[in-house]
């Protein structure tokens, strides 16, 4: 039996609230399946499993806030017998105590059923009310029953659920999360900064030609070219792609490009486009569109938030000419793209009006030095000169 635990969705996450189960006991699950939604400081995040098997038992009910590492459910391997004992799941009434054992993800025998909560006082709850409460993440302990004998009925759950905000962003919490991550970054990471102005005219011309033949929904944006150029350059300069943890840099073979996305109402997140260097421009554009849509809808996946290996940030047309990013730990670099502007520019000894963009790099001096940083940054700029090769 394998424990599926509350994942760590960021270096600063201590606990998460289980909002919703998207799978039920008996369902077959495989690595990568989304099985639950967890509310964290970063918003509601869809949680994937990393094991393949059958969901045996849920150990935590929606509404419960549990520390990172606490088993949320048991997954049994194919052919393994279902568990017999059924300890009471963690209810939605309080923060459960941290488990005795650490968060080591080793497969274990049926875990010591949690030193969790005392049983709730018996409240009558109709089956429909219970089901809908689970679906909507309503904490039944906070619902007042108006049915016979104080029973909680469906209407009571609906009343309790209606004023609640949908699973999504808590801006106060998000601000706190950004504060914690950025303070840690500036405290721990010795940043160095480089900046380079790059002729964007070839890329802009190519983009205009390419898009002229396409319907609006299939057009490329410059952001996709920036992302692809950065991802390809990161493959050539691996010391900018990976995580610095426990005193050492671990480069990443995969290039999961974090894309900083501003959220309406304030705050931002930088979830990953997985394997960005391997995607065609069209696929990369589609992935970014999908990600932006889901982020603004308050839904993204645990792996997307937890595993970017390098981040790009672009202020777009409404920004300024240069931005110098703050590295999101445990990453080691962030590449910034300013607003593209038309400037007088010398081309082949002649002055011309060209579209220019300022590309910046903030990198971790524990891992890389300015010389390599300059080469990395120049490589991005060079790749933008040949957009058809991206």
């Amino acid at each position, binding site marked *: 039996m394998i424990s599926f635990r509350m994942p760590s969705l960021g270096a600063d996450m201590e606990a998460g609230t289980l909002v919703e189960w998207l799978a039920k006991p008996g369902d077959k699950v495989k690595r990568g399946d989304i099985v639950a939604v967890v509310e964290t400081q970063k918003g509601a995040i869809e949680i994937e499993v990393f094991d393949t098997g059958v969901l045996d038992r849920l150990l935590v009910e929606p509404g419960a806030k549990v520390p990172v590492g606490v088993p949320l459910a048991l997954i049994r391997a194919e052919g393994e017998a279902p568990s017999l004992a059924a300890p009471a799941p963690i209810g939605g009434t309080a923060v459960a105590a941290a488990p005795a054992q650490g968060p080591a993800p080793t497969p274990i025998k049926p875990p010591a059923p949690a030193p969790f909560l005392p049983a709730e006082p018996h409240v009558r709850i109709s*089956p*429909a*009310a219970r*089901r809908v409460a689970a679906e909507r993440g309503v904490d039944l302990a906070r619902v007042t029953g*108006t*049915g*016979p004998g104080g*029973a909680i009925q469906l209407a009571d759950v609906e009343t309790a659920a209606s004023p609640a905000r949908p699973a999504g962003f808590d801006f106060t919490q998000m601000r706190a999360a950004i504060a914690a991550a950025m303070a840690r970054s500036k405290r721990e990471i010795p940043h160095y900064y480089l900046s380079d102005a790059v002729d964007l005219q070839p890329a802009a011309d190519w983009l205009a030609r390419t898009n002229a033949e396409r319907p609006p929904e299939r057009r490329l944006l410059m952001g996709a070219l920036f992302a692809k150029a950065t991802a390809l350059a990161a493959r050539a300069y691996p010391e900018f792609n990976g995580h610095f943890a426990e005193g050492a840099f671990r480069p990443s073979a995969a290039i999961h490009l974090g894309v900083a996305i501003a959220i309406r109402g304030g705050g931002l997140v930088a979830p990953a486009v997985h394997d960005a260097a391997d995607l065609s421009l069209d696929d990369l554009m589609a992935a970014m569109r999908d990600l932006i849509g889901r982020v603004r809808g308050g839904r993204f996946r645990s792996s997307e938030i937890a595993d970017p290996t390098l981040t790009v940030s672009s202020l777009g047309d409404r920004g300024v000419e240069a931005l110098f990013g703050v590295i999101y730990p445990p990453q080691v670099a962030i590449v910034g793209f300013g607003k593209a502007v038309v400037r007088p520019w010398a081309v082949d000894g002649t002055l011309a009006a060209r579209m220019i963009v300022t590309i910046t790099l903030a990198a971790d001096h524990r891992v890389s030095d300015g010389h390599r940083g300059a080469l990395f940054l120049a490589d991005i700029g060079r790749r933008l000169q040949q957009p058809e090769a991206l």
Partner: protein
Amino acid sequence: MTAPERPPPPSPAPAGGPAHETTYREAVRQAIRDAILRDQRVFLMGEDVGRYGGCYAVSKGLLDEFGPDRIRDTPLSEAGFTGAGLGAAMAGVRPIVEIMTVNFSLLALDQILNNAATIRHMSGNQFGCPLVIRMATGAGRQLAAQHSHSLEGWYAHVPGLRVLTPATLEDARGMLWTALQDPDPVLIFEHVMLYNRTGLLADDAGPVDIDKAAVRRVGKDVSLITYGGSLWKTLEAAETLAREGIEAEVLDLRVLRPLDEAAILASVTKTRRAVIVDEGWRSGSLAAEIGMRIAEKAFYELDAPLARVCSEEVPIPYARHLEEAALPQPAKIVSAAKSVCGRA
């Protein structure tokens, strides 16, 4: 157990044609007349169906119209004439056997259960028994414990039988012909309190399906599930409930075996509450079966405990006030519905 193939259900008659006021009794009579006229093989037999015109006067005048070959009086021997009907059906004709009341049908239970319901199974599908048995059921006419019980739920227990409970004029008129087309035995229970019921019936009213339940009133707060004579009490209760702000849905089962489970679950899934109204005794009743199916298949839809209104567990009394007290009544249905809606 039942034939591998049944004829398709009749297509419903178009609504909106001319209609005339008639009675449930007359609708049943016209159904019998129509069947005898349409199919040479059809005949009616039972106690007092001929010269006396039927103990509930359903077949009055039919002996004069069709003669003793098609309208056959029988001795007072339920086992005998039911068995004769069974044999006739197996031999290729289409008898309609009338049994005076469900109480007396117990004398023919051996023929109905041990023979009619099982012959297809026992013969490995070599023989079938396309027999239709009509009988009166239910209480309300001060006919005491000899004539007043509601045992249709018992018959609904038996594999191999199809059990119908026409509650409306349309079903009284239309179920018989469809039943006669069925390759297996069909029992039709006519509640004694329905015979005098009047209403408009379309002149072109024809055969109706014998498979589906029908929503007789649409509502959203509670499903009142019933059949036969209790339908009208239930509709009356639903009116009362509506005045108190509870919109009850009334589901007329129409067919007690096989149950239209999908219709039951659909209604309960919508309303999340159910009260089953069944004139049978409570213990081991059809209401119990329906409640259990809801618990099995729609537990997570329920927002309140299931409830039922059945007859008191006594032989149905003769005295009017006691008889009324023993039976499901609109006030009891209202009370049960309000209780599950938390409005008791």
